């Protein structure tokens, strides 16, 4: 350690553009999205139709809204495998209450509250019963799924009020409402993560939980907030989906949805080891997942290739995360 020279407090402005930014996960993903778009358009020019691109955006929104809460949780070192069932639970709760006569705006709020309660239950199972997050949320996944079947008798809830369906199917100047909701939720999540002490503390508990505790961060309280946010956004996505398709479906979420959300979060550059990740990354990850779903259909590729491609991209994303951490840390991990 030697004496510091020069102006001691003046800091250079952050560069607006740098090579490091080019190497960010979202930049790589955007290149992949463009390559898939070019390849698919060559096979079927209809891929670039406004209607088709809107379909991609609508589907991406569902992944993205859930991924906002899930990514904050994973950056904070948590994991929620119940998100697919909370998605169903949100839609079913709201739908069931609407059929019971509750005005739809109140039913929407109640559905989100049910998701929040589910998230809180997850946090309590983890904190009080000391069950690892992956097991705790896998357990609650089955419980919530069973509850949905129990409440509905396995039947979808239809019809839903027109006003409710409009919030999922309407558009403003051609932009679907659901895209607008996703943008609002994305901006709020990004702001929380990047511009508040809460965001710093989330990265701290994900990066080094013991250090966060030693520095006086209320780790248990923050964990609870993160699971609640994951539950709330999971239920909200389920409600948006129910409004979009006009019915609350028992089979809307499930394990496939959970895996898609976790995949979108990981592809978007959120580290499974916590601490690292960004909301812009998961936005691009959600668009990529939705684009792959759509592109394989438009290009008439057999459906089994969908899972193969997603699997390959997921493995590549986690491998890239490892390389990123090696660049970031002197100690190999």
């Amino acid at each position: 350690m030697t004496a510091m020279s020069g102006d001691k407090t003046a800091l250079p402005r952050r560069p607006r553009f740098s090579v490091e930014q080019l190497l960010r996960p979202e930049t790589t993903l955007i290149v992949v999205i463009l390559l898939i778009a070019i390849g698919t358009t060559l096979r079927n020019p209809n891929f670039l139709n406004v209607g088709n691109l809107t379909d991609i955006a609508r589907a991406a929104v569902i992944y993205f809204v859930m991924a906002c809460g899930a990514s904050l949780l994973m950056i904070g070192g948590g994991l929620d495998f119940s998100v697919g069932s909370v998605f169903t639970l949100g839609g079913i709760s709201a739908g069931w209450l609407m059929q019971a006569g509750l005005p739809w705006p109140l039913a929407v709020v109640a559905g989100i509250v049910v998701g929040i309660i589910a998230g809180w239950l997850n946090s309590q199972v983890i904190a009080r019963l000391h069950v690892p997050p992956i097991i705790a949320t896998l357990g609650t996944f089955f419980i919530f799924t069973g509850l949905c079947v129990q409440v509905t008798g396995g039947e979808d809830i239809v019809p839903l009020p027109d006003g409710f369906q409009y919030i999922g199917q309407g558009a403003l100047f051609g932009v679907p409402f659901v895209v607008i909701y996703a943008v609002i939720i994305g901006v709020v999540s990004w702001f929380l993560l990047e511009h508040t002490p809460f965001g710093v503390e989330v990265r701290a508990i994900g990066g080094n939980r013991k250090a966060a505790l030693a520095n006086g961060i209320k780790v248990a309280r923050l964990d609870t907030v993160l699971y609640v946010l994951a539950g709330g956004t999971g239920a909200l996505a389920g409600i948006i989906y129910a409004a979009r398709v006009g019915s609350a479906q028992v089979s809307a979420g499930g394990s496939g949805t959970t895996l898609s959300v976790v995949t979108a979060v990981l592809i978007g550059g959120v580290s499974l080891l916590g601490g690292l990740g960004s909301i812009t990354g998961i936005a691009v990850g959600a668009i990529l997942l939705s684009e792959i779903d759509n592109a394989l259909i438009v290009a008439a590729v057999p459906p089994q290739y969908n899972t193969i491609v997603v699997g390959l991209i997921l493995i590549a994303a986690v491998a890239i995360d490892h390389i990123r951490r090696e660049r970031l840390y002197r100690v190999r991990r």
Partner: protein
Amino acid sequence: MSLDAAGTSHPRPAAASAPALTLDGVGKSFGQVRALAHVDFAAYPGEIHCIVGDNGAGKSTTLKILSGIYQADAGEMAIAGGRVVLKDAAEAHKRGIAVVHQDLALVECLDVATNMALGAIPRRGRFLLDRPRMEAEAAEVLADLKIRVGSVRTQIGLLSGGERQIVAIARAVRMDLPIILLDEPTAALGVRETAHVGEILDHLRERGKTIICISHDLEFVFAHADRITVMRLGNSVATRLRDETSRDEIVGMITGTIAGEAAGR
């Protein structure tokens, strides 16, 4: 010298007033393992008080009680004369205690400035992170302490062990709290870096801070401590003014060949 109720000697520097922090008969067990049997301790403003002892003597457990990570099973702790029970690290911080842990408690994926602000993050209003202030404060503290770690935007994961140690100490300084605890601050450092840490502690003492430092490094202890408390087998066996003791006496009390005042407890 003055004797406390338990019979342990507590020599006070002439200039010292009331103790900033005291432990009185503190004990701590983990199941069947008794980590601390009986610890008496008093640290005063404007002094460096080193705690020495062999492995397993109870030094780190004592520090974890002082920093709110563990809670004592027996005895009392007081800050500025008032009895306290620290239920967690946040409360220790609120009561005016900054801690430099042996594992440094740094978050590798965050930069230097953010790590230095953890636990006391600058805000704009109630909810907004004040990043410019956070970076400026970190740069100012590092400059004051003549520490060079590149930019405050450098991620901790990119720093060497010595640089991380210095950043951890700088973080405690930035908090500007009256009591600073350090657990083996020179364990991972080279000769020059160790000397630099000593300079920082001397500087903090001049500013009236109460410095409590756990160390194995007797050369460092005798170069910088005002007082030395020796721990052995979970007990504080004696406290000595540095100028009134010798390395041989301290080593003798550490190994048990010389009995301290409280050795028979």
